């Protein structure tokens, strides 16, 4: 009996020692993984904040008169020209063409959705684009084709267009998160996603300026 007891005691001691070691191991691993995740996600957040601020200062969107650019004030005329709205919704095929906005301002290997809302008149402008895409393993053309197939005129898309034109939808009127994820299923090394909102003024005319919001959704790959 004594021998058996001793074996059991040693076994329990060994288990405790191994358990203690595993706890310490997990503590360090958890600390490392969490800190890395925070830093990586803060990179995407910082990028989306910088992007939003750059668009607020972009002469493609901001109101300019002579040599003066009015930061934070968007010109409705420029929004109508550079982005997609209710009036030119079916020109969405230009969504993936080289937008002047994104050729000027965009991070490489990233996809950007811009969504501007006039809070007073319910006017909406939308644009999706990307920076230069050359990340190894990411097939942009397959990605683009995949997203375009999501726009086929099925009840879901018609519903989204209805939601968009009636002002009920969020910042992703033509695709949802599942569409993006499905199209990226073959490429899993995404860095992260960030969505930020920026208050803006939208200048309609010399005498009319509305309050609005610019949403910037950034996905880095």
């Amino acid at each position, binding site marked *: 009996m004594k021998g058996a007891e001793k074996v059991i005691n040693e076994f329990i001691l*060994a288990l405790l020692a191994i358990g203690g070691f595993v706890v310490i191991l997990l503590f360090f691993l958890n600390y490392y993984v969490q800190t890395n995740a925070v830093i990586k996600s803060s990179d995407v957040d910082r990028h989306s904040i910088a992007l939003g601020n750059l668009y607020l200062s972009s002469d493609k969107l901001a109101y300019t008169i002579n040599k003066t650019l009015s930061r934070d004030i968007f010109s409705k005329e420029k929004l109508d020209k550079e982005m997609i709205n209710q009036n030119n919704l079916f020109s969405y095929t230009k969504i993936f063409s080289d937008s002047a906005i994104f*050729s000027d301002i965009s991070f490489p290997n990233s996809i950007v959705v811009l969504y501007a809302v006039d809070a007073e008149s319910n006017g909406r402008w939308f644009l999706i684009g990307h920076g230069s895409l050359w990340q190894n393993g990411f097939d942009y053309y397959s990605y683009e084709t995949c997203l375009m197939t999501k726009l086929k005129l099925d009840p879901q898309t018609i519903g989204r267009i209805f939601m968009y034109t009636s002002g009920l939808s969020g910042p992703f009127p033509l695709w949802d998160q599942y569409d993006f994820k499905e199209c990226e299923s073959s490429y899993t090394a995404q860095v992260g996603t960030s969505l930020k909102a920026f208050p803006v003024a939208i200048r309609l005319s010399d005498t009319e300026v509305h309050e609005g919001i610019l949403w910037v959704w950034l996905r880095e790959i």
Partner: protein
Amino acid sequence: MKGQEEPGIIGMILIGILAAALLYLLIEFVFSNMIPLFASGSVQVVSRDLSGLITISGIAPYKITIDYSPTADILYNVSIDSRILTASTLENNPKPMTISSGVSHYATAKTAIDNLKTSLVNAKSFEIKKTTQFSDQGRENVYSVTAK
């Protein structure tokens, strides 16, 4: 009984040594990978800060100048092309507390602005400039990064 106990004690000592060795390797791995993310002079931090400062210089509606000196005595090689900034330090650079042993001497970061291509060698501090030029075609933003 004594003869039976000895192998158990030796086993425990061996397991203890093994555990200590593994823990040491783990701590070294964690800290050598963590420190570069925080050390003020590491290329990871410098590339991240420099690319961020270059990007936000574009926010200025007309012009802006930013001086950036990450440390007093570390030299960096920096190149920017296709909106990718690459920073590296030389192996024989001084290694104060800000750079620990085992830290990578190479890092990349993204910028979001166009029209910037430059290469700097042995730079200690940097001057980032954004100006706006006007012509018949409209406004054009011009960016530059130089060593100081």
